[in-house]
């Protein structure tokens, strides 16, 4: 009986040699429980058989903040140490989120090739689940930031409600670029080695430890002023400036036009990443 009922509203599926698919929210929602279960698996498995367990989600970013915060406070000795520390910590956490999403998304497809080589599901589910895992880690590490905020006696502003927007922008950055690299990774495993290099280098051309103003001053010694926008081709500059602005206000956003340029680049990268992914997605199995 159930069968008959299904038969009435079942759809006809066509498999064709030149059929290409594109992102469909309907498909993703249909596989929602797979998305959740994959994310849950990655999260659970990571901390299985580790004595400190889920505490590692706190310890790792904390270490980073301590090291880089210390370095920054030594260099920027002029500024107030405590707020300088929180300043660096907030940028650092957001950068870590980007780095994790970028890295995990770019490795997600080959890491789960055993799944889509045997069962059909929209492959976009895999990188999406990587984002979920990174986001959970980020939420945990936000605790550090909140504690630092309270200790250093930061004031609460209305513009703090903008912060989630820049977290989303960071996810978009990591996802867009990550998806592009995930696609290349299917054929060229070199990606595994390139991504950490990009991330390491990228951190130093992004206002993580220093403010944008600092970079602009240094840069203007080498290049003419009208070329300064080149710095903003890095989509993470906009995200981090915006995040800092939402938390601390002040002059975190160096130049609003440049800021818009950087965020535009974010969406451009997302578009390129998604397009590239869907161009090759159907043939992944043959290249793995």
């Amino acid at each position, binding site marked *: 009986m159930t069968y008959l009922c299904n038969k009435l509203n079942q759809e006809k599926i066509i498999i064709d*040699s030149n059929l290409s698919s594109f992102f469909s929210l309907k498909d993703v929602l249909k596989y929602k429980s797979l998305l959740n279960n994959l994310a849950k698996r990655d999260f659970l498995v990571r901390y299985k058989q580790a004595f400190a367990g889920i505490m590692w989600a706190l310890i790792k970013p904390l270490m980073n903040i301590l090291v880089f915060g210390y370095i920054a406070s030594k260099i920027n000795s002029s500024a107030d140490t405590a707020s300088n520390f929180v300043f660096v910590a907030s940028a650092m956490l957001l950068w870590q989120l980007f780095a994790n999403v970028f890295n995990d998304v770019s490795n997600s497809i080959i890491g789960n090739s055993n799944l889509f080589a045997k069962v059909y599901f929209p492959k976009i589910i895999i990188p999406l689940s990587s984002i979920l895992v990174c986001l959970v880690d980020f939420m945990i590490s936000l605790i550090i930031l909140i504690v630092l905020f309270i200790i250093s006696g930061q004031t609460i502003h209305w513009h703090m409600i903008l912060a989630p927007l820049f977290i989303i922008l960071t996810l978009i950055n990591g996802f867009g670029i990550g998806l592009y690299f995930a696609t290349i990774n299917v054929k060229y495993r070199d990606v595994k080695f390139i991504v950490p290099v990009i991330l390491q280098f990228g951190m130093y051309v992004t206002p993580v430890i220093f403010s944008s103003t600092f970079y602009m001053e240094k840069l203007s010694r080498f290049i003419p002023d009208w070329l300064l926008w080149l710095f903003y081709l890095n989509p993470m500059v906009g995200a981090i400036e915006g995040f800092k602005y939402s938390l601390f206000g002040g002059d975190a956003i160096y130049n609003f036009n440049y800021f818009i340029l950087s965020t535009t680049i974010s969406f451009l990268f997302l578009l390129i990443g998604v397009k590239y992914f869907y161009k090759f997605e159907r043939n992944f199995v*043959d290249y793995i």
Partner: protein
Amino acid sequence: MSNNTVIKVEGLSKQYILNKSGASKSDTLYGNFLNGLRNVKNIARKKETEEFWALKDVSFEINQGDRVGIIGRNGAGKSTLLKILSRITPPTKGRIEYSGRMASLLEVGTGFHGDLSGRENIYLNGSILGMNKFEIDRKFDEIVDFAEVEKFLDTPVKRYSSGMYVRLAFAVAAHLEPEILIVDEVLAVGDAAFQDKCLGKMNEVSAKEGRTILFVSHQMAVLSALCNKSVLLEKGQFVGMGPTDKIINTYLHRGEKNTGQNYDNSEPANGAKLKIRSVRVLNHVQTTVSEINNLYKGYVEVTFEVFEKGRGYDVSMELKHMQYGSIFTTCLKDIDTEGNDNKVFEKGVYKYCIELPLSFLREGEYIVSFAATIPKVEVLDVFNYDTLFSILDSTSPVAKTTEGRYGAILPVLEWKKMESVII
């Protein structure tokens, strides 16, 4: 598409480009860079690739409620067909139309993670196979019951015995409720009782609820028990479709040339532990022959290469009579003259020789096929070629009186006189 057709396959083809020298250098950026340089300097070598059609122009239709077996030798394109049907890989040409929810079971336990508990894996695997949380919740107890793992639900599956692991994996898959179910040779694992249970479940699902099943197996007995229709493929091409018994008969009689030997020097698959390299039929003076005279002795020699040191490997040989079907299967572990059951195989090449029991084999055409497994755990390799040879009638004691004898074998048995009363 007629009213009753659920799957319609039209002109389906799949081409693969093979790199001749295994993993080619051009698979890395550096390799591509080098190739680019060569091209610039105009010393580009001939491309070391080869086109290969895994499927070529295959068309057929399947009606609702049919249980269809897909038959063919290794390399006939069965798995490729299933992969295209289940949308894992796209066809190069042609199209498929189907309606209804389709689930494919090309492997048991896809996505099982050793560190997760049985319970967590049921949810993970279920969602990979396309069930949502609600469906899994509803079926959960049934799945656990079927797999007989209640006590170990919260134990990581890496601590499970291999039997438990397979049972749990199949149990999840068996409780899918698709209108079309695609099953590759996944039942080769597990013990006989469990295999029966799985087949029973599949039969029940198909008969009671009118579902369509596509099933690949090398076991003809299983196919004829489960499937009402079959498709025969050969070297990527469609040969025929019809009632299973008829198709099996066609299949068994479509031998390649009767040579008594087969070699496979192809590159092993990535991560292969073992590969069967050659099979030869030898006569009493150890020469390769295609005909054995049962006056003398006859042997089958198998050579296999072990790539990864390990224990528990087993190689088995099945002997099939063209007319009578399977005669017997014999395993390396049965009587390995060197000994124990859990022998460690070092890396290297092994050669074994099996004497054929000619005293009771009937004359006629035979096929020997080989497979290597770790019993109940995994299939390591299935030899790509069936080796054909024939046994000649001759002057052995029974041959003289073959006429009027029925059955697959001709044993000479002792008739012990117990009593005779003469009136």
